[in-house]
């Protein structure tokens, strides 16, 4: 479904991604794990067209997308829950969700997906009229995921959804990621919480200093000595 081929991305003179190649197939949950500053967020921003790669190719269902504008990429069915959630603090929960469906015109479909989001996160329904900035961290993360779902993506990118949340909320978010996946959305999950991520993922990649250093099934990565010492603290 999504394929990155030898991607190099720079911030000015700083090279953040070095020859990154990876792929995510239809129906999978694939995780990308790595330490702070490894280049995980840059990978997602490059996929979404916010950063443009200096070289390399990004293909969505075989078609190049690395020269497209972010809005064109969203239209093709890629939606991101960015690091730090980036809720619009002064817009209400309802407005935040509405904006998730910004490019859609199918009123009925939007209403159905809104119901789906409320099924996943009942708390959001109670908070509809409240400003996004007044939600708790966990609720903001739910809103960010809900907002991304409102675009009805075929590929959902998540950037450290567990960051700063209590273990019980993390459990809940990960369960919902699995549910969204089993309902038909392909998921590419960036995490530092390698243990949790590898438990729900089918496959995984490890990134260090802008490079992909390992690639394997989630089960093999969980068992690997290297991953266990470097990312699982065992």
């Amino acid at each position, binding site marked *: 479904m999504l394929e990155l081929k030898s991607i190099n991305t720079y911030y000015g003179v700083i090279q953040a991604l070095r020859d990154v190649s990876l792929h995510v197939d239809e129906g999978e949950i694939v995780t990308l794990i790595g330490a702070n500053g490894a280049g995980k967020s840059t990978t997602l921003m490059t996929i979404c067209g*916010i950063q443009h790669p200096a070289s390399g190719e990004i293909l969505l269902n075989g078609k190049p997308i690395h020269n497209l504008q972010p809005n064109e990429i969203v239209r093709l069915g890629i939606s991101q829950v*960015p690091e730090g959630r980036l809720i*619009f603090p002064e817009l209400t929960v309802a407005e935040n969700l509405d904006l998730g469906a910004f490019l859609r015109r199918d009123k009925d479909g939007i209403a159905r997906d809104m119901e789906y989001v409320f099924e996943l996160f009942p708390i959001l329904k109670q908070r509809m009229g409240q400003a996004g900035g007044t939600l708790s961290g966990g609720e903001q993360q739910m809103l960010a995921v809900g907002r991304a779902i409102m*675009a009805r993506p075929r590929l959902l990118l998540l950037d450290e959804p567990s960051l700063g949340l209590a273990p019980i909320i993390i459990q809940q978010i990960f369960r919902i990621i699995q549910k969204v996946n089993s309902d038909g959305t392909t998921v590419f999950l960036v995490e530092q919480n390698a243990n949790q991520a590898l438990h729900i993922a089918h496959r995984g990649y490890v990134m260090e200093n802008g490079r992909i250093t390992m690639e394997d099934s989630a089960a093999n990565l969980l068992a690997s000595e290297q991953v266990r010492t470097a990312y699982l603290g065992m």
Partner: protein
Amino acid sequence: MDFQYFIELFFGGLTRGSIYALIALGYTLVYGIIGLINFAHGEIYMVGAFTALLVAGLLGYIGFPEGGILIVAALAAIVWTSAYGYTMEKIAYKPLRNAPRLSPLISAIGMSTFLQNYVLLAQTPDFVPFPMLLPEIDGILALFGDVLGPSDFFILVVSFTTMVVLMLWIRYTRMGKAMRATAQNRTMAMLLGIDANHIISVTFIVGSALAALGGVLIASHMGQINFGIGFLAGMKAFTAAVLGGIGSVPGAVVGGLVLGLAESFTTGYVSGNYEDVLSFCLLILILIFRPDGILGKRQVQKV
């Protein structure tokens, strides 16, 4: 009567303030979206006034029905001035989007100087009379006695209606929501498929249209214009925007009205000599004591 004098000053201030508010909205909208003080915004207002002057002159010459002149001239000013605003953003600010913050500011000052001199050369350095286009509404005059100048009522109605429509537009339309989202977090807005370049263009167009409307109203109120009127009006509207809290739409309205009233009362009770000084003193005082303005939020350092 003392009270009647007070009411007179009050309405005079409100009228003047509503026009400051129209122009202040342009500063605040642009600042909200791209964080730039568009110092050429006053000149946009001046171009609006000149466009209306030329079109009204032409229409008068060909014998266009009197009542229609204002509408056509105002529409022409709005359209033409919006085109200026749009083009200005594309050539003077867009190329500097990722440059240090000072660069677009200097570009704005350059744009302002350019537009002043362009109109100076294309027109005349002198003040030119501006036709009285605004309808004088007699029935209303009788109702309010002498407290409301003949064109004041019209200015108040037009500017307040415009501001209410603008606020509803920002609050309820798809484009308005996209604008607020872009102002709050441009990257996130883009991740949702909002075309930030488009939103920025729309912002400049809307701001310029409001300034043009203000230009037409004030020019026919005052009766004369020249190439330099944008500077003073721009500074005052900027003061109004800062007073209300730059970036805040209701703030620009409140700031404009407060400044208009303050000027009117100072002129009426103290002396007319201080009218223009007042706004600059006010600007300095706000910047020192309450830089976030009346309705502005305390600036949180953006990370």
